């Protein structure tokens, strides 16, 4: 156990993804020695993130406005939706420059072990958008994991009866990984070569 303020920071840092006890301690002791101005800047950027950033009311991408810049861009094709698990997958797909439609962020993948079913994801919001925006094709860009594949299959079974074409990224992505680990070229090819579900 350390002095209370140090211990509190270690506990907070250790709650972040990918940071274990030891890394949290290392970070905390590093922060202990930085300039006060740097500490204030770091602290306020975290607070600003909470205050100024929210979720796009249409696609649930992160934005500082009511709708995100992609949804507001009139040049983008509203009839094709790319469905991703998390908002951080969007810049990865944007980086390929192979996609000109809009997005929909589900907020995860179907995983009964973690108590996540379709009701815990933004499926109802997705179905509502099909009619409202005249969506003709949905690309399931879920992660190439057991859960991501199951989610893609679920999208197909849910949306095909509504007359929507449902496709999945072509295989070639590293199995069991995250989209943001795939490089842009691989991901770009997977988008172009997407397959009917």
């Amino acid at each position, binding site marked *: 156990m350390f002095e209370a303020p140090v211990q509190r920071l270690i506990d907070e840092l250790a709650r972040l993804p990918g940071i274990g006890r030891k890394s949290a301690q290392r970070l905390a002791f590093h922060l202990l020695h930085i300039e006060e101005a740097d500490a204030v800047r770091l602290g306020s950027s975290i607070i600003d993130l909470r205050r100024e950033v929210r979720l796009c009311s249409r696609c649930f991408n992160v934005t500082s406005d009511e709708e995100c810049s992609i949804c507001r861009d009139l040049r983008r094709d509203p009839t094709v939706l790319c469905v991703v698990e998390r908002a951080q997958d969007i810049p990865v797909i944007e980086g390929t420059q192979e996609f000109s439609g809009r997005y929909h962020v589900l907020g995860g993948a179907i995983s*009964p072990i973690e108590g996540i*079913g379709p009701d815990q994801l933004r499926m109802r919001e997705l179905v509502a958008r099909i009619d409202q925006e005249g969506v003709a094709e949905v690309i399931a860009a879920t992660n190439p994991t057991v859960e991501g594949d199951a989610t893609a299959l*679920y999208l197909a*079974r*849910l949306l095909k009866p509504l007359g929507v074409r449902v496709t999945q990224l072509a295989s070639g992505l590293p199995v069991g990984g995250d989209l943001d680990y795939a490089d842009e070229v691989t991901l770009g090819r997977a988008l172009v070569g997407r397959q009917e579900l």
Partner: protein
Amino acid sequence: MHLAWLELRDFRSYESLDFRPDPGVNVLVGHNGAGKTNVLEAIGYLSALRSFRGSPDAALIRSGTPAGIVRGGFERESGEVRVEVEIPEGGRRRVLFNGKRPQRFSDVARELPLVAFLPDDLDLLKGGPGGRRQYIDDLIARLHPAAGADLAEYDKALRQRNSLLRNEGPAADALTIDVWDDRLADLGSRVFTHRLRLLDRIAPVLAASYRTVGGSEELTFTYTTQWMGAAGKGTSRDPGDHIDAIRDALSARRMRDLDQKTTTLGPHRDDPGIRIDDRDARTQASQGEQRSAALGLRIAAYRALENRHDRPPMLLLDDVFSELDPLRAGGVLELLPKGQVFVTTARDDEVPVAGRRWAVRGGVVT
């Protein structure tokens, strides 16, 4: 390849162990309960990333301590390969392979070929189908990386479906179960054909191995499923050919699965069997025949891995010699002079081989 060093911290009975074994034969001598098998279990864990005793990870942590640690360095022509595992109480274990998290656990098993002979190997013959499935699946993962990934994904999809059935029961969303049925059927058909192909490949090796431990009869594999009956020579080995059969069987069982809250059929319930001259080895063979067949299975695994890697696997022999007559012991000893070997015994004179002797007592190995 050989294990150059092993470090244990709060693993099983060991508070701390630093062990630098010989590259050849190592004989660990000690009383029952002295901790000999724990050392072998740790070595096996570094390769298979699970206990060969079938123990859950939590059982490997020394009681009253927050985490158990197993680390080991293996020397190969291409340099050292390091495996490090930290098993925290009630948390997720951390596995590092050469300092990085491995893409798949079967990658580690493939890089570190190892075969363990265990005191209860007779259960491979006498016991239920689970042990035989495990034997086959372990070899698949060690021999064919892509197939090993399919096995792991099937297992994951199965756990997801079972979790859905357990949590939601008859109220489970039908569309969501359909999706898991699809995944299970697709992956299950692959698992099934991987197994048939492995049995095709290993059948002649098994027959030869059985003869080296004194068996004179014909040893053959069988494979029975609940979803298509018995598989044989004429059964398709194409992974795409059984998807519909599994999916149809799953949907026919849907009501029962919902009721029992688990998946009652599929490759995870299949029954691989062994026949000795057309008799069922489980129910119609003598104890001696069963013992020879069990040894034959392990020797066949050793041979298959040796062929795959062009170098001998590591060999763990846990208290095996006390049960063997000279003829069968001879069959096992044929494997010894090649790679690194770890043998445990309560009585030094029981092990008919030369090699470095280690005394195991009071939590130290000297």
